[in-house]
């Protein structure tokens, strides 16, 4: 049975983005309702959906590192498993994190906004991915 070696969660901004959107939708709907004397349902429903998404994402771990692979999970419904051997390279830019890996002999890219992780998490991610590449190459 494999065990999680490291986990990287969302930053405050990443965690609460859905709640902010939900707040905007609900307050907007109430404001429109008060102005036009008729409550618009769509923004209210979308607000409710964003609330549900926000609660589901509260404990989300974007990266989980195991012995032979790591899991990238940007949202509750989307998960990508990547073998350490298939990691090609990574780049941490000013606003984006780019990870390149191989899948069925084709190179694929993962792009992630840097602000969804905390600065310390970005450092952990950098060292961990670096370790994976270095250990594999055997330098």
């Amino acid at each position, binding site marked *: *049975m*494999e065990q999680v070696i490291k986990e990287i969660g969302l930053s405050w901004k990443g965690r609460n983005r859905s709640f902010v959107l939900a707040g905007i939708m609900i307050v907007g709907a109430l404001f429109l309702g008060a102005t036009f004397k008729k409550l618009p349902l*769509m923004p209210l*429903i*979308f607000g409710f*959906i964003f609330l*549900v*998404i926000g609660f*589901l994402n509260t404990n989300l771990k974007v990266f989980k590192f195991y012995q*032979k*692979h790591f*899991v990238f*999970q940007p949202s*509750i*419904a*989307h*998960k990508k*498993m990547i*073998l350490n051997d298939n990691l090609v390279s990574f780049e941490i830019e000013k606003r984006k994190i780019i990870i390149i890996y191989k899948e069925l002999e084709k190179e694929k890219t993962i792009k992630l906004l840097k602000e969804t992780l905390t600065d310390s998490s970005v450092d952990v991610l950098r060292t961990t991915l670096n370790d994976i590449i270095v250990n594999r190459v055997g330098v």
Partner: protein
Amino acid sequence: MNKVNRITYLGLFVNALILVYIGCLEKYQFLFIPAMIAFLLCVVGIVLVMIDKIKVGSILFFIGSIFFVPLGMIAAMGIGKTISDLKEEKFNKEVYGTSN
């Protein structure tokens, strides 16, 4: 038999509520048959995912859920999570020889 996530069942329940709501209101009667078909697609999709026909099942489920958007997004999210969990289970079996 594959396990289906609880969010999927919650979404299916919400879709059923919408179907009942449409059925009860006279002005939306013309939408009842399409809504019924969409709901049946969701049910068939869930059963197919359970019996390991993941691709066909998820496509049917997504098509069915589109009718109930925006609340249908809950069910779509649930089936998305179910599929990614099943993929992870399969991946773990291949790599480590265990599903946990």
